[in-house]
């Protein structure tokens, strides 16, 4: 695949030239007014920056952070067998995978279910703080951090699918039955909310402060 770099002489912002980029189809369009505008190529509304990006992302992030606590403390599954009644949290699920001898899988679930959501909350929170405090610098690193968060977010759904399959299959009366726990609901909500938070964040805010100087 051919790879080129486009040529620039000085760093000029689209904003200063009155050029907008459609966040839906990525067409570059020339703004001729101020209020509501639609993209001539795909018909989406075009904004200079995503409207209320900081407030929306912040609200979604705070909700996700609150739900992260029950998601990790409350059981995601209850298992009733002939001999025992067990509650499984996300963490005890990781530990039981470890006992079953599949440490690569235990590590994978630990990363996807515990580390990734926490990393997303911390990283997105920090990015928001830098935007609100208008701190310049490290724009490239912050941008790359954001893209990492955006990319890995969906992998946290892994545990939700595992729970769904376990619940559907282990329904053998008098031997073993698995029920969903309320923690799974909180956990699913954390994944969805953090994904929405990343989607509503406008990456250009990370670069604006620098270019204003």
């Amino acid at each position, binding site marked *: 695949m051919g790879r080129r770099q486009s*040529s620039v002489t000085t760093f000029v912002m689209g904003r200063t030239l009155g050029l907008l980029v459609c966040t839906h189809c990525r067409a*570059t*369009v020339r703004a*001729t007014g101020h209020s*509501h505008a639609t993209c001539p190529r795909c018909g989406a509304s075009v904004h200079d920056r995503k409207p209320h990006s900081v407030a929306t992302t912040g609200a979604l992030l705070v909700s996700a952070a609150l739900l992260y606590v029950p998601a990790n403390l409350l059981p995601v599954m209850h298992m009733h067998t002939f001999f025992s009644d067990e509650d499984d949290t996300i963490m005890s699920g990781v530990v039981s995978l470890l006992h079953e001898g599949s440490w690569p899988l235990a590590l994978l*679930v630990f990363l996807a279910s515990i580390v990734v959501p926490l990393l997303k909350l911390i990283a997105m929170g920090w990015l928001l703080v830098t935007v609100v405090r208008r701190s310049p610098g490290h724009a490239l690193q912050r941008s790359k951090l954001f893209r990492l968060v955006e990319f890995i977010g*969906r992998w946290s759904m892994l545990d939700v699918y595992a729970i*769904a399959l376990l619940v559907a299959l282990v329904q053998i009366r008098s031997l073993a039955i698995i029920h969903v726990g309320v923690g799974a*609901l909180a956990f699913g909500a954390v994944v969805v909310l953090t994904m929405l938070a990343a989607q509503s964040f406008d990456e250009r805010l990370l*670069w604006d402060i620098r270019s204003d100087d």
Partner: protein
Amino acid sequence: MRLETDTSSVIVCHACDLVHRLDAIADKARVRCIRCQAELYRTNSASVDTAIALAVSALVLLLLSNAYPLVELQLNGSNRATTLVGAALGLYSQGYALIAALVLLTTVLIPLFQIVSLLYVLLPLRMNRRAPGQNELFRTLTHLRPWAMSEVFMLGAVVALVKLAAMAQVIPGVALFSYGMLMLTLSALTSVTPTEQFWRWVEGSRA
């Protein structure tokens, strides 16, 4: 307010708002922003036909994945099998409608919507026609991409199988294999229909 397209020679980076001057968009290229390294656009030499072929295969695989059981469990003479929809219904019957909806949407309904609407847009495009609502549809598709999670589901299924194997005998079903194939087909489909490529097909058909 009225806007004019200005894509001929200038591209604004969607990630950092930097203006780039471009000579011509090559047929097979990946261009990155010089400042923030975001991908400005990616085009490939794949044809509409390739995309249609992949979408049809994906549709067949998705139907197969839902017609056959994913996994069968054998424990002390009793056995139990489940399909993908069955797994979602199991969550629903235990009172967790929201998780059931999340599972059903991300593994079945959103991929199905992606495949069907791509076919709906690409088939007329192949005959130089425009399907009504194609722009809105393609815009929605771009937004839905992160929410189709077939590859995440496959990993989740592996985790569930390993946990089950510790307590019972587990027999992988036809749907597990076809869903694995679906995952590969969908990622190929996504890579031959990058956003910029689609709009180039649309603009090419108008000429």
